[in-house]
């Protein structure tokens, strides 16, 4: 009976027992290095931790490159098919080069790192690691794992350049003017995973602390609008998508796309609603024609009009960060979605209500150029308080946008089209009309707020003389 009961158990445990006592010895060998190189550069091999093990996953490197190792010290933790085992070095030396990163998988017996005997040999070992990983003799090169993809793709949409912290809209009061970053533990962890520079993230937590959702929002922000609109605005992304897509393949999300995905899910927790409005644009079109030669763009005009309307309706420019309070933003920063290849970014026209239309237009041109060159600074695309998404240029007459987390409202602008309308004097006339559709967070912005905001906006656009002052 006991024997019967034990049969399923003993084989695995026996092999494990073997691991425990015999795991390390075959690990580091000078065999190859002696044959190849004069200097003592040893390879660290993936050990066979059990009789059934064919490959092992690197759980973590206990040591990092350049660390001095002494005999018997744990270097790496390897997960076999049965257990996680600490793997020790049998030689003194320096960990010169890690060939299989954490999370990577390597076949048993393949090299996972190089061990240099002296510090001088580290560089040599590194060179060797570079060449050998390219050579066919390196089955160690791990399968490209999903975790590794962010490295390769490097979505240029998120400029990794060191952020000008001073520009961050709200810094922690205790952060000594932005020199010190106050971020919660999980936010820090996420930032590391998502490769987000915390210095450029705006904190929404207590006293401006950066919390996890800020990091997620930041990582997703440039593409939030894109994701929001893909259902309707396929034409926008299709252009970028045509090139280099292999049909029938499954492509994992990049870090940014993963963040977008999370953000989209997060947006489901916000109770949004939509209010639409039809605005006659004859006057605006006329104004645009008149000042177009001075470099004024329609985008700038729309942003300006929106900003002026927001001045009268601060609640529409507010945000709800904790579900308990309004955050009334001190400035009106209009984020405008712009499609660029591989995604979409939302350059921000800061203080759009205060800056005159010509300056605003110049600023806009500068931002678009920077966006195309992927040189936008973080504060130039993540400080928006209200978002405008315009798909009118594609002939879209109406659509629906998803609210970017952290803001109160987003406005989807359709194309201005000649429409037959009944005029007040009882005639039938032809007017250019566009439909706008605002999505807002109903915890803070109610139907009447949006309605009166849209009414104000319509007045401004239908009588646009204020826009040029």
């Amino acid at each position, binding site marked *: 009976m*006991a024997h019967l*009961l034990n049969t399923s*158990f003993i084989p695995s445990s026996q092999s*494990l027992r073997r691991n*425990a006592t015999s795991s390390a010895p075959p690990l580091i060998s000078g065999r190859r290095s002696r044959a190849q190189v004069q200097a003592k550069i040893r390879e660290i091999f993936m050990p066979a931790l059990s009789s059934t093990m064919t490959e092992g996953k690197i*759980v973590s490197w206990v040591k990092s490159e350049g660390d001095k190792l002494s005999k018997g010290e744990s270097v790496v933790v390897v997960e076999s098919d049965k*257990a996680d085992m600490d793997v020790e070095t049998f030689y003194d030396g320096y960990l010169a080069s890690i060939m299989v990163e954490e999370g990577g998988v390597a076949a048993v017996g393949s090299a996972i790192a190089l061990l240099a005997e002296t510090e001088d040999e580290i560089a040599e070992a590194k060179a060797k690691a570079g060449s050998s990983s390219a050579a066919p003799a390196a089955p160690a090169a791990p399968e490209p794992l999903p975790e590794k993809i962010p490295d390769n793709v490097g979505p240029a949409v998120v400029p990794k350049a060191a952020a000008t912290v001073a520009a961050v809209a709200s810094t922690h009061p205790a952060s000594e003017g932005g020199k010190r970053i106050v971020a919660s*533990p999980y936010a820090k*962890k996420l930032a590391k995973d998502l490769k987000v520079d915390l210095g450029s993230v705006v904190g929404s937590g207590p006293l401006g602390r950066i919390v996890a959702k800020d990091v997620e929002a930041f990582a997703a922000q440039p593409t939030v609008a894109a994701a929001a609109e893909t259902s309707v605005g396929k034409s926008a992304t299709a252009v970028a998508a045509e090139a280099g897509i292999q049909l029938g393949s499954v492509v994992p999300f990049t870090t940014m796309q993963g963040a977008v995905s999370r953000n989209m899910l997060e947006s489901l927790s916000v109770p949004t609603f939509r209010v639409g409005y039809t605005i006659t644009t004859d006057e605006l079109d006329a104004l645009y024609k008149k000042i177009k030669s001075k470099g004024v763009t329609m985008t700038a005009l729309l942003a300006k009009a929106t900003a002026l309307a927001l001045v009268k309706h601060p609640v529409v420019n507010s945000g709800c960060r904790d579900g308990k309070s309004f955050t009334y933003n001190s400035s009106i920063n209009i984020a405008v979605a712009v499609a660029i290849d591989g995604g979409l970014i939302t350059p921000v026209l800061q203080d759009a209500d205060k800056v005159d239309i010509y300056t605003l237009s110049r600023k806009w041109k500068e931002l678009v150029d920077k966006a195309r060159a992927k040189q936008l600074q973080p504060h130039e695309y993540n400080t928006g308080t209200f978002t405008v998404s315009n798909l009118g240029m594609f002939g879209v007459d109406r659509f629906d946008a998803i609210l970017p987390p952290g803001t109160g409202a987003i406005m989807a602008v359709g194309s201005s089209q000649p429409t037959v309308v009944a005029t007040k004097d009882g005639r039938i006339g032809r007017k250019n009309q566009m439909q706008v559709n605002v999505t807002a967070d109903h915890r803070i912005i109610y139907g009447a707020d949006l309605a009166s905001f849209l009414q104000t906006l319509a007045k401004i656009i239908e009588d646009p003389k204020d826009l040029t002052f």
Partner: protein
Amino acid sequence: MQASLSLPALSPAVPRPSYVVQSALPLPPSKPINLRFCGLRREALGFSPLGRSDSHRVRLSAPSRSATISASSSSGNGSPPKSFDYDLLIIGAGVGGHGAALHAVEKGLKTAIVEGDVVGGTCVNRGCVPSKALLAVSGRIRELQNEHHLKALGLQVSAAGYDRQGVADHANNLATKIRNSLTNSMNSLGVDILTGVGTILGPQKVQIGSSDKVVTAKDIIIATGSVPFVPKGIEVDGKTVITSDHALKLEFVPEWIAIVGSGYIGLEFSDVYTALGSEVTFIEALDQLMPGFDPEIGKLAQRVLINPRKIDYQTGVFASKITPAKDGKPVTIELIDAKTKEPKDTLEVDAALIATGRAPFTQGLGLENIDVATQRGFIPVDERMRVIDANGKLVPHLFCIGDANGKMMLAHAASAQGISVVEQVTGRDHVLNHLSIPAACFTHPEISMVGLTEPQAREKAEKEGFEVSIAKTSFKANTKALAENEGEGLAKLIYRPDNGEILGVHIFGLHAADLIHEASNAIALGTRIQDIKFAVHAHPTLSEVLDELFKSAKVAHVPSPVSEPVAV
């Protein structure tokens, strides 16, 4: 129970003064049967005769105080018999005092316990017990929120949430329940519970509370325990800067809490808080988190309990100043480098939990009356828990157990020390082997240990000149653990390959705290690996992790009494 039924008939046969005589004599080897009758008789007959004599005695003892002192001071040099109110008086009704009291009754001693606060002490009211209630909740919610884990089991659970007050009530109710059963157990055994702070007036004499009630006892055990230690510079307000005392009430769940100290208290609270949705920052003065744990276990624990959770940490830093939240300002923590004392960083968090250990509580105990000087607050004792005075001499008839002596600050260690003391005062010499006392940390999964850590064992081996071997098994190879989908875990055995002696066992994994006892019992009883490896474990159970562990140890062939199975 059977014996007690027949007692009333027997009791008249036992002469009443017997215990007085016994206790006054310099303790011959105990006569267990006689003593037990004595104890049970008291229990069976109830309190009325004692109650009467009590008051009588108190009145008597006051005028004769000076006489008592001189008598008892000479008693150290072989005193004449004299009468006491009690055989054993225990100051402090925590787990240590309770364990000692129960054992004393079993040994037939007339016992009283003095408590200045609530019965149950730290463990029951502000420690192990309520924290286990919180950890039970955190374990469940963690499980319910672990989608990946549930999915692997084929389970679907929609969003799990919790009600803070409900959780807090659970902890509080549990403490009340345990406290009541502790009180009842002592009452029903006839242990007198004297309410008030116990102050030692002189040898064998204790004042209860501020009244002039003075009781005498042949032997006295100090079991006053400990309170949370708060380093200087830290202002505890009980709201945003708290100790474990406050945290166990779970009055609020901060978004971000800094935990100062990453020992087992800090670790357990990090488990609770992260499960309830907080983010945690550990502040550890040493260079490594979880000091005190076997390094290998600590490393694995860090990988499982810290890295994947919403926890970050700063090591090698002291929290030199902590200011509670005030006027809309957050809790401010000033950090300095532990070595250079240079200012290093400032943290602003929603709350800070001070888990820097515990300080012995000896206030008002009257140690000065018997010339005992504390060392770092602890009452110095020898290996038999006998109190040592300022001149390095043993104080007769005075013992100290538990956190107050600082030997091993664990509830069950205090209890074991108390039992050891009772054994001694009833005539059986007994020295407790502290290396056989297990310890556990009730995180998810749990950590448990007994005996030496690997570095300690290696140091000892170096000194004493023997070999040390290590054996390890993983929970990943255990059927039951895999069935639970909880394969993360490691058991580690530190032993002498030459004679099979178990030096230490460390377990990190599912139900580790329950698994350790096989090892701690083996150490306590001196069982060797070559013997215990033949013990049979039910299959499939987590206990097989230890079975595997013992079997994987390689002991040089030593003849062993049970090496050959005997056919019956």
